């Protein structure tokens, strides 16, 4: 069983038909052979992009519904002081934001592979894989 933790960018790419990672992100969400989870931070981030970047507040509801479907699968992990302490260490080590590092810390804590569309700060540093590479070949 492949167990994955998705960051907000994967959810957003799945709902944006113009995103480069749209098809693989969508395929992951619709795949019943993988166990999916996310971090509670994703709720804020998907809603924020829907409202402030997409200028499509109506898109927030289905995005948040998707987060809740992950809660029904392997869960929405909660940010805790311990998790953020680990995130701070990762952020320092890799020179990335604590937001991005929090997903990496959550994936590490849960023993899951982190999936992200963030090539610059997560994928290139070996902290995450792209949706297309999330499942073992």
């Amino acid at each position, binding site marked *: 069983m492949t167990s994955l933790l998705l960051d907000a960018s994967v959810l957003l790419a799945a709902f944006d*038909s113009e995103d480069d990672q749209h098809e693989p992100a969508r395929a992951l969400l619709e795949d019943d052979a993988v166990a999916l989870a996310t971090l509670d931070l994703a709720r804020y981030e998907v809603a924020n992009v829907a409202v402030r970047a*997409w200028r499509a507040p109506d*898109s927030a509801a289905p995005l948040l519904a998707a987060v809740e479907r992950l809660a029904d*699968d392997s869960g929405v992990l909660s940010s805790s002081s311990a998790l953020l302490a680990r995130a701070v260490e990762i952020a320092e080590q890799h020179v990335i934001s604590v937001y991005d590092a929090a997903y990496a810390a959550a994936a590490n804590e849960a023993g899951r592979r982190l999936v992200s569309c963030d090539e610059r700060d997560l994928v290139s540093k070996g902290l995450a894989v792209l949706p297309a590479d999330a499942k073992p070949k």
Partner: protein
Amino acid sequence: MAKVMVSLPDDLLAEVDAEARRGGTTRSAVMREFADAALHRRRESRAAAMRALLKDASPHGGHAAELVKATRPDS
């Protein structure tokens, strides 16, 4: 395969054992099968719900990761 200790109420254990006898298998095999089936149902349910939600996917210009960063409070 890992070995684990599991605490079960007596009546649930009796049902698991009855199922094992019925299927000519072991208590461990029944519990593995039930756990696997329950988790698979959960994943199937999520996948079906996602298919329904994603029917309404629409164009938003791409660059999801960059937009997440651009809309964070310290940006």
